[in-house]
């Protein structure tokens, strides 16, 4: 039936549900284990400067803030741009905008960070956030375009034929039908953002990258391992939230 969305639409499968249950448990166990392992040993004074409850929780919080800011930017920019380039009047912009997003993703994140730093001669939170946002934009933009493009033309015709204005058609038909695609793209963007946020220490924007960097420079494996494992756990946790969003926000009739 073409009345239902194309069968290739992302769907929450049984295996996916199982993963949604197991993943947070795994994150908790591994996260707790590495924290216990790192804090429960005789630390040198230098190590204690990095490995203490206040510092580690502050870094985790910074890391989450960066991820959150990146996600907000990616959503606020990617979805409207995706909508824009699928409107009949603005299709000509499409190769241009998708091209920019492609360059953003193809360029190494570290290069983007450094370039922005060199260009603005500034450091700090936003100098870390903006390049990462450009780097993670493509999945949301591409999936928004894909999601809007795959909406069955006959449904658009039915909507128009019943007297829906273009805006009503967009908000009540096209976007709801594109949500599964957009959420799948968002999940990818989130994972890219949380991973790349480990580089933001380079421009003094904080995050768990500081632990990794310090551990590496001081050849201190405890700090290095703590930072790396926590970054991995955070990535898995963020991915889990993305999965939850897909589970709860996908329109019911499409499941």
């Amino acid at each position, binding site marked *: *039936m*073409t*009345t*239902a*969305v194309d069968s290739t639409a992302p769907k929450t499968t049984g295996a996916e549900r199982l993963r949604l249950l197991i993943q947070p448990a795994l994150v908790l166990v591994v996260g707790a284990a590495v924290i216990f392992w790192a804090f429960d040993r005789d630390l040198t004074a230098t190590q204690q400067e990095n490995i203490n409850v206040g510092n580690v929780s502050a870094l985790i919080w910074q890391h989450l803030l960066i991820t959150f800011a990146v996600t907000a930017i990616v959503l606020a920019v990617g979805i409207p741009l995706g909508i824009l380039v699928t409107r009949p009047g603005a299709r000509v912009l499409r190769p241009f905008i998708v091209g920019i997003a492609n360059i953003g993703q193809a360029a190494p994140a570290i290069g983007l960070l450094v370039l922005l730093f060199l260009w603005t001669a500034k450091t700090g939170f936003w100098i870390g956030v903006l390049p990462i946002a450009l780097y993670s934009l493509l999945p949301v933009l591409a999936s928004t375009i894909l999601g809007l493009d795959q909406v069955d033309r*006959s*449904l658009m*015709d*039915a*909507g*128009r*034929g*019943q*007297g*829906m*204005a273009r805006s*009503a058609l967009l908000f*009540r*038909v096209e976007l*709801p*039908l594109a949500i599964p695609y957009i959420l799948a793209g968002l999940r990818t963007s989130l994972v890219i953002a949380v991973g790349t946020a480990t580089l933001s220490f380079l421009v003094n924007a904080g995050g768990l990258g500081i632990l990794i960097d310090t551990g590496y420079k001081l050849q201190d494996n405890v700090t290095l391992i703590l930072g790396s494992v926590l970054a991995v756990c955070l990535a898995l946790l963020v991915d889990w939230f993305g999965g939850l969003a897909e589970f709860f926000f996908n*329109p*019911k*009739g*499409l499941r």
Partner: protein
Amino acid sequence: MTEQLESQPSSGAQIVLDHVSKVYPGAKQPAVDDTSLDIPAGEIVIFVGPSGCGKTTMMRMINRLSEPTSGRILIGDKDALSIKPTELRRSIGYAIQQAGLFPHMTIRQNVGLVPGLLRWDRKKIADRVDELLDLVGLDPGQYADRYPRQLSGGQQQRVGVARALAADPPVLLMDEPFGAVDPITRSTLQDELLRLQSDLRKTIVFVTHDFGEAVKLGDRIAVLGQQSKVLQYDTPQAILANPADDTVAGFVGSGASLRQLSLVRVKDVDLRPHPAVHRTDSLESVRNVLAGSEYDWVVVVDDRDRPVNWVRESRLRHSQTLADALEPLDVVSTQSTLEDALEAILAEQHASAVVSGPGSKYAGVVTLDTLIDTITRLRSEAEAPDGDES
């Protein structure tokens, strides 16, 4: 402006296409070339023609999904081109192939969509949805809160019709709405559309490429050729009996005579008398009836004169009682079509269709001769200059 269209609920509005043309940008030839058509209020008019003849484009110009390049379109006494397209469309029901229901909305939300756009209050919309689902034969309690994919194709199509009727529009546009369902379901849906229409008397423009469907549903059929040229615009009977040209004849196809039979009901032809006996009659009297007639079989009726069996002469000879010789009988009613009667004639060994009239009483028989006479009469009526449409 929609107010005026809505103020005449339940009855159709006349549609006039006045020298309408449509040229798609970049196309050399117009899709619709200077076509005029007068669609009477309250009738089902079928646009039928080969693929690509522009019949869908012509229909879509009525609700301006396709803007005419030139010409006028009147709905009721309003110029459709002077009404804002979204408002115009809310006052015209629209049903398409495969229903086109929104998969992320429940049946209730789908059917209540246009009333919602027209800003009816919630209670009124809910009541209307229940009423419409009942009308198309779906129990609201069971189906209203389901999603389209939980319904069969035929049920989705019913919802599609309900949605088109939601705001009680005077005009309904239907674009091959039953094209994607199996033949049995399609036939049921067609019957139900006719049943609905007998109450609602909407003006329905119905596009199909199936001439059989056109004959079954149409009060009038517009046979369209290339660029929506109207090759013939007449009642199904007239087109079947007297196609305007070879193109129409070719489209009507070789089954034209059979289709004509499906348009005439048994009550409209003269039944032939055939001897009948009562179930409790003696063998002797039955033999006398047979001997006194030119036939070798008789109809057997029960206490209330209903035809229930038949008996043939050859079998009577070897029987002790009438009951031993009885054979079961299929009857057609006066409401059946001549096509049904033909089916019965071909199926029965006595080569007749026994007809039960009012109160299921025995009324007479239809034979092949009756059918041949009828077709001959229809043809001569269609060819005669003052031939009427029955």
